[in-house]
C-alpha cells in the first residue's frame, strides 16, 4: 500500500478519536475544524457526505467509475475548503464539485467508455437466478438517469443511497419543498417511463419463441 496517503476512517466515531470535535458535532463545526486543518473532522465530513456525493455522481457517470470519483471529489474539496466563506453551504458546495467532476469525466472519456457498465458487469456472470433482477436493476437505473437532472439526483439519493427526504434536503442544501417535489414528480415520471419500456419489451417478447 502506498505510504503517500493517510486513510481516513469511514465511521464518524473512529474519526473522532483524533479530533476535538464530537462525532455528533454540527456540520458547521466540522467544516470549521476541517478548515483549520483538522483532518479527522474532514474524515467525519466524508462519512456524512460521501453517500450524497456518490449518488450525484451515479446519476451522471457509469457505476464502475463512481467510487474513484467520490475520492476525487473529496480530494478536490480539501485544498479548496478554506475558500468556502459560508460554511453552512458546505453541502451545496460539495454537490457542485461532484457535478463538475462528472462533467469532467465525460469530457475526458472516449464515447466508448461511457455507460458500458452493463457489458462489464455482464462479464461477472451473475447467478442465473439473479440475472433477471440484475437486468431489471440496470433498466431502472437507466430510466432514472434519463430523467431531468433534479429528479434523477433526488431519486438516486432516495432509492439507491437510502437517504430520506429530510436527509437529502439537509445534505444538498435544497429545501424540503424542492426535495418533496423532485421525489414525487421523479417517481411519477419513472413509473411512466418504466411502464412504457415494459410495454415495449413485452410486445417485442411476445413475438419471440420461448
Amino acid at each position, binding site marked *: 500500500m502506498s505510504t503517500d496517503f493517510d*486513510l*481516513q476512517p*469511514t465511521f464518524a466515531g473512529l474519526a473522532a478519536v483524533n479530533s476535538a470535535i464530537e462525532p455528533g458535532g454540527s456540520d458547521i463545526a466540522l467544516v470549521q475544524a476541517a478548515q483549520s486543518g483538522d483532518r479527522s473532522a474532514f474524515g467525519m465530513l466524508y462519512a456524512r457526505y460521501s453517500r450524497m456525493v456518490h449518488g450525484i455522481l451515479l446519476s451522471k457517470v457509469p457505476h464502475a467509475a463512481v467510487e474513484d470519483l467520490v475520492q476525487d471529489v473529496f480530494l478536490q474539496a480539501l485544498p*479548496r475548503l478554506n475558500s*468556502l466563506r459560508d460554511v453552512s453551504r458546505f453541502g451545496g458546495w460539495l454537490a457542485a464539485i461532484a457535478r463538475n467532476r462528472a462533467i469532467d469525466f465525460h469530457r475526458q472519456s472516449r464515447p466508448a467508455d461511457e455507460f458500458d457498465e452493463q457489458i462489464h458487469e455482464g462479464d461477472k456472470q451473475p447467478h442465473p437466478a439473479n440475472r433477471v433482477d440484475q437486468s431489471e*436493476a440496470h433498466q431502472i437505473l437507466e430510466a432514472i438517469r434519463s430523467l*431531468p437532472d433534479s429528479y434523477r439526483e433526488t431519486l438516486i439519493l432516495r432509492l*439507491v443511497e437510502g437517504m430520506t427526504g429530510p436527509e437529502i434536503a439537509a445534505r444538498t442544501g435544497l429545501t424540503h419543498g424542492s426535495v418533496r417535489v423532485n421525489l414525487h414528480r421523479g417517481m411519477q415520471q419513472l413509473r411512466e417511463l418504466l411502464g412504457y419500456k415494459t410495454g415495449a419489451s413485452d410486445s417485442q417478447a411476445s413475438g419471440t419463441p420461448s
Partner: protein
Amino acid sequence: MNEPYLWDGSGEPDPEVQRFESLLKQFSHREIPLALPRQQNAPAKPGYFHGLLLQLPWIPRFAAVAVVLLALIAGGIVSFYPTRISPSGSGWEVARLDGTPQIGTRFITAGESTTKLRVGQTLETNSTSRASISETDLGEIKVEPNSRVRLLQTDEHHKRIQLDIGTIHAMIWAPAGEFVVDTPSAVAVDLGCAYTLQVAADGSGTIRTTLGWVGFHLNGRESFIPAGAMCPTRPKVGPGTPYFEDASESFRAALGDLDFAAQSSEGRAASLETILSQARARDGLTLWHLLSRTEGAERAKVYDRFAVLVPPPAGVTRDGILRLDQSMLTPWWNALNLGDIYLWRYWEQSSSPRANPPNRVLKEQLLLKKTP
C-alpha cells in the same frame, strides 16, 4: 403512491418503492476509507522568518522587529492608494490565461498568479489575451479575447456581471437563479448550467447552452434555452426564439426572419409555414415559445402543429393555450422535459422589487403551490 413512505420511509411501505430500493441497493456507496495525501511533518509555525528572528541576539532582534514594523507601515501606505480608489467588496479571483488582460488600467502580467476583480471594476481582454474569473460559491467564467466584463454584484444570493462586448464561457455551480449576466440586448439568468454568451459591437448577442438551461429576458420577452439550444438577441427587441442547433438551416433562417426582420404579412406567413413544416418533436422548444409570440390565426397554427409533435398533457386545452393561460403553458413546457419552469418563475418573483418575502420563504410557497 404512498407519499410518506417515499418521503421518509414512514407510514405503510409502498411495494413499488420497496422493490426499487431492493433492486438498486447494489449500486449504493460502499464504505471505502478516504485516502488523503500524507501531511508534511514540518511544523507550519513559528515559520521561517520567525525562526530567523529568534536566532538573532537581543538588540539586533529589536532592530529587526523595528525594520519589519516600518516595512509593514510603508507597505500599508503604498497599498492604501490603489485600494482607496478601487471599488468595494472582496471581489472575485481573476487568473490570466493568455496575453495581458487588464483590470481597470492595470495589466495582469505573466508573473502574477491571480488578482481580484472587485465590484464596479472592469476586466478587459484585447485580441491576444484571455482570462478566467472564479469564485468558490459561483463557478468559473472564461473571458475570451476582445471582451469587456464588469462586476456588478457579489451578494450571497445575487451575483451579477455585465458583458458589454465579447465572449464568455460560464460554468456555474451556484444555485439556479443566483447568477445573472446583463448584456445590451438581454439579461441571462443561470438556471443551473454551462453556457457561452457572445455580444457583438452593435449590442446584439447569442447564447449557446451546453449543460442545464438558461433564461434570457428583456422587457417581458423571455426565452428558455436548454442544453444543445441557442438563442439570438437584438437591442430594443430582446431575446429571439430559441432553437436546437441541429435544426435545419431553412428552419433557423425562417425563425430569424420571424423574430427580427420587418416582413410583409405574406412574408411572415411564409416564414411561419417553413418553421411549422420543418419542425421535429424536439423543436417543440421553439413552437412552445412561438405560442406567445404569435397572435390569432398564427397562434392557432402553431398550436395545431405543436399538439401533433408533443401531445398536450391532460387538462391543457386548445382554448386555454390560445388564451395563453399560464396554468396550461407551464405543464406543456414541463412535458418537453427540458427543465422545470418553476425555477424561472421563482427567479422572476424573487428578483422583483415587489417581492417582499425572503427568497427561501417565497420558494417554499411556490413549491407548495406546485405540489400536486
